């Protein structure tokens, strides 16, 4: 390609013949690629497929979980306080239970998705994972506190003691869950 050196003299665009299929054309062996870069790994592909499948379910269930979670928080404002009806509390309890079941099913698909060896976690997924340390314990604590509060209200008592933190813990949990969802959805 000695005449390439005339490239600083622009000319009309050129066309060329189809890609080669001859013995002089370079081969992959000529490029000095390592076997680890060129060898097919069906087992890794199967692992990646399973991981992607599980994380897809995780993603969908996470979105679905957000619906009863929002409804639980909304009904929670009516379930507490002095003048609440029994039906409000039961509705809140039912929504909370559905949220909890969906949440832990969602978490299962993330926790048990196959890990890929040698992968260093980078990017928004780090925020997503870090927030799980807030909403995970929150989703354990919230129903426990809610059960205590429900029991106290059912006895005609004012919600007191540790159960009075139920609302605050639930809001922080829902906030962390929403932030986790957004962290992998929107580009910051």
């Amino acid at each position: 390609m000695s005449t390439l050196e005339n490239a600083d003299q622009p000319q009309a665009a050129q066309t060329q013949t189809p890609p080669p299929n001859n013995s002089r054309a370079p081969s992959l062996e000529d490029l000095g690629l390592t076997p680890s870069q060129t060898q097919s790994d069906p087992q890794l592909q199967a692992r990646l497929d399973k991981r992607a499948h599980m994380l897809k379910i995780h993603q969908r269930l996470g979105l679905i979980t957000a619906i009863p979670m929002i409804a639980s928080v909304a009904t929670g404002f009516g379930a507490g306080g002095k003048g609440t009806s029994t039906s409000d509390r039961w509705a809140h309890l039912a929504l909370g239970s559905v949220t909890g079941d969906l949440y832990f099913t969602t978490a299962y698909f993330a926790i048990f998705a196959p890990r890929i060896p040698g992968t260093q976690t980078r990017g928004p997924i780090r925020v997503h994972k870090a927030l799980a340390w807030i909403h995970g314990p929150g989703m354990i604590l919230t129903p426990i506190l809610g059960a205590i509060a429900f029991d106290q209200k059912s006895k005609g008592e004012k919600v007191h003691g540790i159960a009075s933190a139920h609302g605050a813990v639930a809001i922080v949990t829902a906030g962390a869950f929403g932030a986790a969802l957004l962290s992998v959805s929107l580009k910051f």
Partner: protein
Amino acid sequence: MNTKFLIGLLFFAASAFAQADQQWILQQNTLTYHVSHPLHQSEGVSHEARGKGVCHQGQCDFLIAVPVKSFDSGDSNRDLHMVQAVRGAQFPLVTVRTRLPEDAGSSATVHADLEIQFAGQTAEYKQVPLQLAKDGDNFRITGTVPATLSDFKIDPPSLLTFPVKNEIPVRVEMTWHAEK
């Protein structure tokens, strides 16, 4: 004595002509794919392509290969998902083959027919415009390959149930060095 010298000279000349005229080695490269999603615009970059060009009888055959997993989008989760979606563990390399006329460098732009093997499929892109610029002993080549997911039978990955766009243009920036 003169006869022997002439025979020797002819033999040397014949063997010299039988060899490839020139070889090109890919020295530096940046390959960038672009993916569009209603909520995201993301790019993955690789600098790990290897390439070689061999010229003979007025034509230069080029081969470029890049490991699929070498593309970095800054998000390890996305990168793993990309490798899965394009079957990158099963087909770990993207290879590009093309043939250019030996005097292609006399133009500022060359239109190349590219044969690309990716995700276990082969697609041909005709007349892809590539810009050439001389930089000392090197040549800098830039251009964009108008790749699409459907060309390689790749199911579009989705986020929040919205799939990415079919178009995944790949920006190519390469510096080739002549080896004599």
